[in-house]
């Protein structure tokens, strides 16, 4: 008998606007020592499925309509609260996506770690504080926290994102669970850290023989670690098979679509960059922020002496991990962050010398697309207002032709005209990003800086938006700087790539040349950490590590 056996699980959400079938007749099994990956885009029901196992769903609106989830023969869906608490404390643990918000910022991580040990549901199993501390330190060592004894008393904000996720893993493992549910545990992490965390989960699993359910939106991430994969879409299971079956003998159309949407390989469009005709010239740029956390107040050197040129018509990829200063560099070029030293030329004009008033006509020529399409649109302005604002402000349209111009923009970015009067919250993430792109191209700019424009989107939507961006670049003859932490995306879209780390440029090169032959160790590490959507080569790679 399998450790966990889910049969015909159906969960509906009942709201005023009707019933949403979040999970519809889903069945799967997980054995000890086995990894099951549940893959799907947002709204596919993958998280709802797993949250229901630990009774973590808000009820109402959620209601479990049918099905059983037998864990060791006991139904998790119908057991009482006391029994569920025992399962939660002893048998089933969960790791969440965001390690910052799932740790309590006011309690030291050690205190949080030993909590389940000293307050165990089963009184006889409770440990003394000193024993619990020893056990926790041992576990922190195991998940790769250096100096675990000192770090025991540190608070969550004193750890980096990757280290926090390690703490979360330790916390999940502290009571030796038999089933570990990981809900997108690496989505918020940098690519090199992601590789480390994935490897850690795999090793710990093998050592302890626990069953793992791994939820992800990214087939690439699960390729290397999953034994079995189920692909979910709109609440139903589209395809269930072992990992190699999913990747090499794909049957379902939706799975095929998902696989096809993973950005892979080189750019399809020709390189339109002009030679030696730079639109933007950055020389020895430094952007520092005051850092008040130290005494005396010091500086955070976000960008520390960067020089680069962007040629007309070029798509320049800017790659780096979080904290590398890539976003600050983009904002500095657009004069959205005050620079500390250096110069930025747009054509022959030195932008950083212009007064705010003189800068206005130049602002029109350079625009930005932001990462989060939920935050980058004013929630109280309709699509029409959002798109009309730049046109009217820069007198690119008048009262007569404004409607027609806005419609033209909506056509350009692939939004139906009937959506004109809607507010941002009525759109999906991908549609919102289209609105934001429409706003950026409204002023007919020459340069667009796109800061992680597809990172917040599902993989199929991501592919659509990337193609939209490529089309617009060609149609409007744009020059673009494309900032991303995702190397596959950058390779797919860029002509030339700049790799940044800790505020300085590590390496620059034509995309394919850089992929084929990276010159710097840092670049090699980055490239090696990209998860491949190919179980066999992933496994080989893990063995060689």
């Amino acid at each position, binding site marked *: 008998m399998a450790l966990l056996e889910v049969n015909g699980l159906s969960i509906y959400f009942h709201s005023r606007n009707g019933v949403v079938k979040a999970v519809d007749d889903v069945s799967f099994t997980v054995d000890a020592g086995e990894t099951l990956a549940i893959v799907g885009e947002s709204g596919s029901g993958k998280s709802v499925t797993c949250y229901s196992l630990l009774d973590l769903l808000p009820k109402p609106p959620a209601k479990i309509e049918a099905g059983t989830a037998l864990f060791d023969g006991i139904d998790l869906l119908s057991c009482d609260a006391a029994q569920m608490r025992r399962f939660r404390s002893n048998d089933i643990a969960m790791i969440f996506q965001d390690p910052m918000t799932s740790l309590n910022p006011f309690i030291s991580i050690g205190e949080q770690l030993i909590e389940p040990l000293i307050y165990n549901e089963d009184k006889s199993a409770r440990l003394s504080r000193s024993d619990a501390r020893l056990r926790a330190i041992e576990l922190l060592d195991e998940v790769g926290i250096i100096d675990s004894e000192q770090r025991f008393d540190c608070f969550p904000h004193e750890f980096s994102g990757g280290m926090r996720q390690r703490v979360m893993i330790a916390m999940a493992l502290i009571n030796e669970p038999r089933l570990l549910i990981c809900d997108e545990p690496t989505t918020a992490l940098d690519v090199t850290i992601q590789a480390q965390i994935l490897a850690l989960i795999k090793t710990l699993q093998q050592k302890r023989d626990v069953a793992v359910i791994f939820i992800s939106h990214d087939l690439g991430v699960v390729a290397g670690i999953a034994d079995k994969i189920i692909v979910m879409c709109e609440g139903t299971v589209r395809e269930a098979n072992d990992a190699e079956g999913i990747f090499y003998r794909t049957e379902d159309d939706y799975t095929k679509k998902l696989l096809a949407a993973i950005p892979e390989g080189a750019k399809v469009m020709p390189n339109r960059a002009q030679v030696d005709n730079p639109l933007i010239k950055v020389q020895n740029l430094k952007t520092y922020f005051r850092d008040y956390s130290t005494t005396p107040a010091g500086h955070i050197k976000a960008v520390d002496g960067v020089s680069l040129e962007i040629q007309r018509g070029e798509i320049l990829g800017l790659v780096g991990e979080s904290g590398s200063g890539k976003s600050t560099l983009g904002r500095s070029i657009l004069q*959205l962050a005050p620079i500390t030293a250096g110069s930025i030329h747009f054509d022959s004009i030195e932008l950083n010398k212009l007064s705010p008033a003189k800068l206005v*006509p130049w602002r029109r020529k350079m*625009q930005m697309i932001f990462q989060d399409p939920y935050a*980058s649109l004013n929630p109280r302005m309709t699509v029409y207002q959002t798109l009309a604002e730049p046109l009217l402000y820069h007198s690119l349209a008048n009262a007569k032709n*404004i409607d027609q111009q806005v419609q033209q923009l909506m056509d350009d970015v692939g939004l139906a005209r009937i959506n004109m009067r809607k507010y941002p919250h009525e759109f999906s993430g991908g549609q919102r990003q289209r609105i934001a792109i429409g706003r950026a191209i409204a*002023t007919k700019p020459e340069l667009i800086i796109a800061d992680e424009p597809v990172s917040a989107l599902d993989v199929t939507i991501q592919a659509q938006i990337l193609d939209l961006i490529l089309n617009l670049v060609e149609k409007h003859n744009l020059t673009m700087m494309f900032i991303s932490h995702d190397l596959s995306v950058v390779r797919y879209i860029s002509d030339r790539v700049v790799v940044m780390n800790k505020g300085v440029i590590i390496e620059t090169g034509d995309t394919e040349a850089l992929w084929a032959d990276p010159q710097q160790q840092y670049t090699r590490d980055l490239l090696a950490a990209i998860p491949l959507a190919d179980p066999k080569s992933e496994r080989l790679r893990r063995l060689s590590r």
Partner: protein
Amino acid sequence: MGLFKASEQNQEQEQGTSLWKDAWIKLSKNYLALFGLSILGLLCLVSILTPWIAPYGYEEQNLILGATPPSLAHWLGTDIFGRDMLTRIMYGGRVSLTVGFIATAVALIIGVLWGAIAGFVGGRVDAVMMRIVDIMYALPFMIFIVLLMVVFGRNILLLFLAIGAVEWLTMARIVRSQVMSLRKQEFVEAAHSLGLSQWTIIRRHIIPNTLGPVIVYTTLTIPSVMLLEAFLSFLGLGIQPPQSSWGLLINYGVETMEEYPWLLIFPGVTLSLTLFALNFLGDGLRDALDPRTSKD
């Protein structure tokens, strides 16, 4: 900017979509808010027409009659001087509603602008502006008002200004904290990169997004201003008898509560009705001005 404004209006006519127009459509479907609005409208109308429709003069005494309970001649009874309560409440409404609305409007305008500018510009400007607010907070309110009265003389307009000048402080703080979190948002940065002027950004992108808390606080301010006026009048700094206001009537009503309860009940009911109406309207407005609440 001239062109911008003209085309903005044009766009509203043609498109029928703006925050305010949508808000009105939504509000007109919210019966509770409409009820509040009509009560307030009725009270205002009565107040405006009072000199023509009031059954008696507001200072018309009848000492022989004295305090009588409600009757056909005096629907809401008379006070100890034999003055008709209905008339007194109607005249009182003129003062109370004017104080309530004007002082709150003063507080609203100064507070929102002050808070928005301080929060948006930040840095030294913010520090100086907020220290001024702190200093005003620290000033004992009564001394401030007495000082104003001594310097400028007793004047009902001054009373509005004085109350407004105290009430805007909290409004400024609320708006500032809202704006501080808003200005870091990407849509504000996008507006910067479009080259919009600071003032346009504040007006079009910042202030509309602070409306929720501002409206709620406004509906709380209006009644507290009315009561403040009663307090000042009670101390002899505001309205003086034989003029009346709801606050004053309630104050006198409390003194004679046991012998002549109607002197307390009727002005009290009128004030409560106003507060209910304001709260219904405020809640309705807050929902209507937030596009994220459903349209149906």
